[in-house]
């Protein structure tokens, strides 16, 4: 599937050029790129809100730099060029030579999109593709060329610094007060401070590549705090044949001499051990010629300028990761094992119920405790906060807002709510669709909103929270809501109901039609929505995840979409019941209470059976009818009926069963691909005796 990635003329320390197989690194590259791009997204949004936030700019620079290094290692030249140009602009930004204007932020967002584009292509083809994003590159260089007169030429003049002659004490680099501080601190900690001067062969063809290798070696064994010319210039090959670095290290100079001399095409390596002798003459205010970018305010009276000049290697090490990436297949294996364990435990319980002894009871209790904890632990590993899905929405809303020329703002809450990994992967697209609907069809234009007395900025709320055994995700807007009458007309138009039938549909029932295929009341088809292919797909996807979706609306005020998703996918507490001669399981989370009723308490409303429960009218559902259970051979005339009161959201219903068996922990198993879409059955479970009991899908029965 993935072709072998080749780095032409990859230069190895021994000077030989080899074709390297990079395909094994593709996975890591993609994963890490995605994380960086995500962080870039968040930072850019922050920058937009707070253009003077220096630390955000630094963060963005850091990410661009890291991405550049990664792209360079994988020989993705387009990506490398783009990130390199981004870096130039970001460098100007962090040095206050360019101001953060909306135009700048827009261009940076375009860069982000271009980079995401590259990663997509890499995921599907293993290569970065041929898109060179020339327009984005041009936009970046336009930003660079604005108000940049003198410093440019100064930079050029300086960058061809030949490294020249060393001063009398052997120093080639001019050190300032900040360097002195860093050096003296390092010396205090008994580290070596070395000035390392490297001269390349004049016949060297790829100077930048050689320098890269040298910097790799230096980075592995030391911390580079100063470099002349600057690291960026060296990467751009803006140096003659030599450069000098100041490095803090545990190794001695002989080590570096040996290492660096062994790199091909290196002609000469000179090292000078820096001591306090070299730094004692440095005073505040004197000798403050920084080797980089003179003309920049040297006034930053903290060590930030020192860190600014410190070279950063292309692969900045991340802060210690406290997480581990786990292959999801391995998790599935774990899950299966835990499931088996639970089934076996249940079997044991059945077996032992004959002659119980204290020891036996204790052992089973222990087992119970352990399996429950194990199950919880494994489920937790699969759980991911919805934030990973929610995080791209602010950007999306921002873009839509510009595209539709409507003012709108997205409020998010509950991002820390967790969902199973497989659900997270699937829930993104449906949510995008619903949010787009709110933005496109729900929210009105600013003028219209003002005319209605609303705030001209539209609001969309995205909330996630836990409710019992479910996770609920809500999308609410304060737009115009849904015109129920328009929907009713469309239902009649489409021939889905007669006029009379359509007239008696309740609001909720009418709105349900929007979830049917090809149903849209939008007058125009916009790029975003209106084709009528969306909501039915959304509903199907959500139901496939074992959840359900409801739409509430108030004409003129707004709409709210509520999605319910099951929290755990595999193991739940359930009530086992008999219906006829068949065993069924009802998830405990749906059950409100259980009780017996007299047949005489059942009344008829509109030809449907109901019962009274503490003043509430509760519809009754006879499971034997719904499930088509064959009648028992010897029907019992029962004095009392057993009724399980279940709830779906706010609604209660009573399920009439024949007998209660007991509460049990069960493992949910899918019915398989062949029997997908069976209403009223959520799955099956294997009982302790090896027989199969079907699990009732309460939501579809009520």
């Amino acid at each position: 599937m993935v072709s072998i990635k080749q780095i032409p003329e990859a230069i190895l320390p021994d000077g030989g050029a080899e074709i390297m197989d990079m395909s094994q690194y593709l996975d890591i590259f993609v994963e890490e790129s995605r994380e960086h791009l995500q962080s870039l997204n968040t930072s850019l949004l922050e920058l937009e809100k707070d253009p003077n936030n220096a630390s955000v700019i630094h963060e963005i620079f850091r990410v661009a730099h890291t991405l550049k290094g990664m792209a360079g290692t994988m020989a993705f030249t387009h990506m490398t060029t783009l990130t390199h140009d981004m870096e130039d602009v970001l460098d100007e930004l962090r040095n206050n030579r360019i101001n953060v204007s909306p135009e700048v932020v827009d261009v940076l967002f375009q860069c982000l999109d271009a980079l995401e584009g590259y990663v997509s292509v890499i995921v599907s083809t293993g290569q970065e593709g041929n898109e060179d994003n020339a327009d984005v590159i041009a936009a970046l260089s336009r930003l660079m060329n604005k108000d940049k007169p003198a410093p440019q030429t100064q930079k050029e003049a300086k960058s061809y610094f030949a490294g020249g002659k060393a001063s009398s004490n052997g120093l080639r680099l001019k050190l300032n007060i900040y360097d002195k501080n860093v050096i003296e601190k390092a010396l205090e900690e008994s580290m070596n401070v070395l000035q390392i001067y490297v001269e390349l062969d004049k016949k060297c063809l790829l100077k930048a590549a050689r320098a890269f290798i040298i910097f790799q070696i230096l980075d592995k064994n030391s911390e580079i705090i100063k470099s002349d010319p600057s690291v960026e210039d060296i990467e751009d090959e803006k140096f003659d044949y030599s450069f000098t670095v100041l490095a803090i290290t545990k190794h001695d100079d002989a080590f570096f001499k040996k290492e660096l001399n062994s790199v091909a095409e290196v002609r000469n390596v000179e090292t000078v051990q820096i001591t306090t002798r070299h730094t004692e003459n440095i005073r505040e205010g004197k000798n403050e010629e920084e080797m980089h970018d003179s003309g920049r305010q040297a006034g930053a009276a903290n060590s930030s300028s020192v860190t600014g000049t410190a070279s950063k290697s292309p692969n900045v090490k991340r802060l210690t990761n406290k997480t581990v990436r786990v292959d999801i297949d391995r998790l599935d294996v774990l899950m299966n094992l835990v499931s088996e364990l639970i089934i076996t435990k249940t079997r044991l319980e059945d077996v032992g119920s004959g002659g119980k002894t204290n020891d036996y009871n204790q052992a089973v209790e222990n087992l119970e405790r352990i399996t429950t904890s194990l199950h919880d632990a494994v489920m937790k590993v699969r759980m991911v906060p919805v934030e990973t899905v929610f995080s791209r929405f602010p950007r999306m809303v921002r873009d839509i807002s510009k595209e539709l020329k409507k003012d709108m703002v997205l409020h998010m809450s509950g991002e820390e709510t967790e969902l199973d990994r497989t659900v997270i992967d699937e829930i993104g697209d449906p949510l995008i669709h619903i949010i787009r609907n709110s933005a496109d069809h729900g929210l009105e234009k600013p003028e219209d909103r003002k005319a209605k007395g609303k705030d001209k900025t539209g609001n969309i709320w995205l909330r996630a929270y836990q409710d019992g055994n479910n996770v609920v995700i809500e999308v609410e807007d304060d737009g115009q809501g849904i015109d129920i009458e328009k929907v009713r007309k469309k239902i009649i138009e489409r021939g889905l109901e007669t006029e009379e039938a359509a007239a008696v549909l309740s609001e909720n029932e009418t709105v349900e039609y929007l979830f049917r295929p090809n149903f849209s009341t939008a007058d125009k088809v916009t790029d975003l929505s209106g084709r009528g292919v969306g909501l039915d797909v959304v509903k199907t996807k959500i139901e496939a995840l074992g959840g359900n979706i409801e739409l509430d609306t108030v004409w003129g005020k707004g709409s709210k979409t509520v999605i319910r998703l099951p929290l755990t996918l595999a193991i739940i507490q359930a009530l086992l019941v008999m219906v006829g001669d068949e065993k069924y399981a009802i998830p405990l989370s749906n059950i409100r209470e259980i009780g017996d009723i007299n047949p005489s308490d059942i009344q008829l409303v509109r030809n449907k059976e109901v019962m009274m429960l503490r003043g509430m009218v509760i519809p009754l559902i006879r499971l034997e009818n719904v499930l088509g259970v064959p009648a028992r051979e010897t029907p019992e005339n029962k004095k009392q009926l057993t009724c399980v009161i279940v709830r779906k959201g706010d609604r209660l219903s009573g399920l009439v069963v024949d007998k209660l068996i007991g509460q049990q922990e069960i493992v949910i198993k899918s019915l398989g691909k062949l029997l997908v879409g069976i209403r009223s059955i959520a799955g099956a479970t294997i009982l302790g005796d090896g027989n199969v009991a079907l699990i009732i899908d309460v939501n579809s029965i009520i």
Partner: protein
Amino acid sequence: MEAEKKQFVVFRLGDEEYGTDIIKVTVIERMLNIARVPTTPAYIRGVINLRGDIIPVMDLRTRLGLPEKAEDDDTRIIIFDINKIVFGTIVDSVSEVLQLEESKIESAVGIINDSSLDYINGVAKAESKLVTLINLERLISELVPELS
């Protein structure tokens, strides 16, 4: 040159012998308890527990329009796997595995006149008997339309 040979699992329904391509056969099991599943077509008897997995089971007699028969010691469930869709069919008994040459397989058109023609790939002559070859994908096409 040896003619193309394919292997078939041959089973009986009543007096007749039927066969399916062996590649799609996973395992042959004795009869197991079947749990009924509501709102499924009549030819789906229900689901079984096969070593921890839930597998739907089809009554092949019903599917092919044959009268029902009580199960006995010879009744078997053949488990198939078509593109990761796993299901079983109940048959009266399983006879053997046959190697058949392509050339010995004839079209069933003209021989079979009823609706079961839909599910039949052809009729094969093997030694002294005729084996009706079943198209498995068609058997489940109602439930999984994208297969056929």
